[in-house]
């Protein structure tokens, strides 16, 4: 139900042109404007919502209002759950700044802990009784319940262990997938992305065809894993393959806006031009995701049509908000750097000579700064050109293959000469050594 409302709301956004009262809370959430925390948080549910809010609170720099807003929402969310550790944490960070309503509620903590103890005892009893009865299904459910319980309390490694233990009691493919999904969820929360990859593989090896939503979820998870391991090309491919049926069904991990952003940026940083066109711009499925983050869509189109100034402008404006994203935070700088380098290379590719001052205007930088960047790219052999520093022009330079071949051949001849002679000398020395030894022995 909720899903339908949201998607229809978004369609309304596309039809109306201006911002009206009813569409004001449907503005694109990841945009150049300062982050609307409430709207952002509403994209997620469960533990990831809390973790993202806490991340924003710790990384929003000096912005007090944003920090307090995030902490307040985190407090409310935690109170709905059973995680007393996080509660204590949040209270410490709020430090009384939000007034009486948001201070330490030890009564609540104690009651939650007591309930948790009771529940734990009950679950243990149940599990031991199931074990004695040796009913596979009940043991599996028992371990699952334990896993859910630990997850809610925030004891992630115990939750993981219990989920994994259900593997021995899984009888149908559905059980296995259920286990994999739980394991993936906990691994993402723990930040152990190697486990994520392995469980995604396990789920995908399932002989039955997967439910498309489950398949999309698995691809998102695998994309996240690749992103964390800095394999941007693979991450981009995975994200671009996510079918739009995902909708909001995986928002205990990731929102569709994130799929669009991560996929778009990784693709831009790692794909070459033809792949970019085929897999991103012409990709009908992904277009639905890109509609959710129009700025990312615009910047990809700008890059492809060589409007570098506006592309870099969008990137700049998105930067602040992207740094607040829990998964993308560590990679923003690398991705931006790669995108900028690609832009520079793509700019110089079609020309025989390029006027550096015009290029500097296009990239919003000074001529000397541009010279330095180009110098780095030339050294890395990503641009074949030489700089005329006197007239500030970049000249394309195509290496003379014929001369280079001759040079290499001569060099190789010399090296062979040296190596073979040294080798024969060494062989002779060894032979002498050996003969000397043999001589002594006889």
């Amino acid at each position: 139900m909720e899903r339908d409302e949201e998607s229809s709301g978004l369609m309304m956004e596309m039809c109306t042109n201006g911002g009206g009262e009813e569409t004001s809370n449907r503005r694109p959430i990841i945009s150049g404007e300062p982050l609307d925390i409430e709207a952002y948080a509403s994209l997620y549910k469960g533990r990831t919502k809390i973790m993202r809010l806490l991340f924003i609170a710790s990384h929003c720099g000096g912005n007090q209002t944003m920090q307090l807003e995030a902490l307040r929402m985190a407090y409310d969310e935690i109170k709905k759950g059973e995680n007393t550790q996080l509660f204590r944490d949040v209270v410490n960070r709020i430090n009384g700044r939000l007034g009486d309503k948001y201070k330490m509620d030890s009564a609540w903590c104690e009651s939650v802990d007591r309930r948790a103890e009771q529940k734990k005892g009950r679950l243990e009893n149940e599990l031991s009784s199931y074990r004695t009865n040796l009913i596979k299904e009940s043991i599996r459910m028992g371990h699952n319940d334990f896993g859910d319980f630990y997850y809610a309390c925030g004891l992630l490694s115990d939750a993981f262990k219990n989920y994994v233990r259900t593997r021995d009691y899984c009888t149908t493919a559905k059980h296995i997938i259920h286990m994999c999904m739980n394991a993936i969820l906990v691994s993402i929360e723990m930040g152990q992305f190697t486990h994520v990859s392995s469980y995604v593989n396990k789920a995908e090896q399932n002989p039955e065809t997967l439910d498309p939503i489950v398949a999309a979820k698995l691809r998102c998870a695998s994309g996240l894993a690749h992103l964390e391991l800095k394999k941007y090309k693979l991450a981009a491919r995975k994200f671009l393959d996510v079918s739009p049926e995902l909708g909001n069904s995986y928002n205990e991990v990731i929102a569709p806006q994130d799929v669009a952003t991560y996929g778009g940026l990784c693709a831009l940083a790692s794909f070459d031009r033809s792949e970019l066109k085929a897999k991103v711009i012409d990709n009908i499925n992904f277009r639905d995701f890109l509609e959710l983050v129009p700025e990312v869509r615009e910047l990809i189109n700008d890059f492809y049509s060589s409007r570098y100034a506006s592309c870099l402008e969008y990137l700049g404006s998105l930067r602040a908000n992207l740094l607040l994203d829990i998964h993308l935070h560590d990679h923003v700088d690398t991705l931006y750097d790669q995108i900028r380098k690609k832009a520079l290379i793509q700019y110089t590719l079609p020309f025989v000579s390029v006027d550096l001052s015009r290029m500097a205007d296009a990239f919003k930088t000074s001529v000397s700064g541009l010279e330095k960047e180009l110098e780095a790219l030339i050294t890395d052999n990503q641009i074949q050109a030489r700089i005329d520093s006197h007239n500030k022009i970049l000249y394309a330079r195509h290496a003379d293959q014929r001369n280079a071949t001759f040079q290499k051949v001569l060099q190789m001849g010399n090296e062979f000469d040296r190596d073979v002679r040294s080798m024969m000398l060494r062989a002779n020395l060894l032979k002498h050594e050996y003969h000397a030894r043999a001589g002594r022995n006889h």
Partner: protein
Amino acid sequence: MNSAESLIKSIQGLSASPGDLSALHGILKKAEDSLRNNWDVQLATLEELDPSIHSLGYLYLLEGLTRGSVSKGKTSGVVLLMARFINRCDAGQIRLASEKFVTLCKRFKDRVLELEDPLRGVAPLVSAVRKVQVSAKCLTALHPDCLQLCLEAKCYKAGFSILSDDILEVDQPRDFYLYCYYGGMICIGLKRFQKASELLYNVVTAPMYQLNAIALEAYKKYILVNLIHSGQFSNSLPKCASTAAQRHLKSWCIPYYEVGNRYNDGKISELEAVVVAHSSDFEKDNNLGLVKQAVASLYKRNILRLTQKYLTLSLQDIANMVQLANAKEAETHVLQMIQDGQIHALINQKDGMVRFLEEPEQYKTSEMIEVMDSVIQRTIGLSKNLIAMDESLSCDPLYLGKVGRERQKFDFGDDFDTVPEKFSM
């Protein structure tokens, strides 16, 4: 007396043909002991013999003469005598008693060094080397001595003429190490860093079971020469170096490793700081001059890198990028490099601009074809040598014995035996 006279007669009589010579050789060997003590007699008898015809006899007598210790005054005379003999003797006869000849020459070298006049010994020893050498591929025991004298006398060109042989056969490892080490030093003196690098490389990678001092010193110089010549430094030894070398050389060469690492970073100021910090170590090893050359070469290396990236560059920019003091110094460096042929460029003094040109070599001239042809011929020759060596080794009984012993007894995997059955245990 009588024995001396009869000896002289036999020498004079039997020095004509090879058959006679072998008979003479036998007589001389028997007479060796009796000759030992009679100094004055021997000097007189020597007068009667002609070094170029009676070389073998002369050799024996001279060797006996010089065996004992000689007083200072007579040393010069003896040295003169020896020099004359070495210059004039007949190579064929000498080779019959090459060990004696070698001992004689070594003694000659020692005396010359005592007299502190190494220049006198250079020419004789060079000719001695040529005479003892059976073929151009063999290393003799005299090579290192000759090179040592050339180094002492600073006669690099003479030493270099010996180095241009392609040595392939080696008898004594120690001779070989010394040969390569001294040879490397001579090439450094002549600023032929390519060949120096090759020679020192041979020492460093020579098979050895224990580290020896020659290899250590050679390795230190090798690092520095490589920096000057190609700007490359790697933290690890080449793979073909012996395990003993790989394990132990590093710990003795730490200051040099630091120089190499700073060189790779490319910053002049840090490199100079390291050099100053370790200058006492370098002085102790007599390598300070080389180190300074390496530092100078870093400037050149940095300027060379600039030619890859720029078409034109102002002298001031070059000075800034390479961390030189001012544009004037940059100009001097660039000028020097153009004259040495390391870069191709034009300096425009009016604008203070340097324009880098492409390498003019088009590989289209007939000289270039000749160069390529000679390289090809050389390579073919080397391949033939390699194959011949392989074949001779596979027929060598010692080698076959070793392989036979180490072959596993119940190895049913191979369809055929690489080594015949009779060589098994």
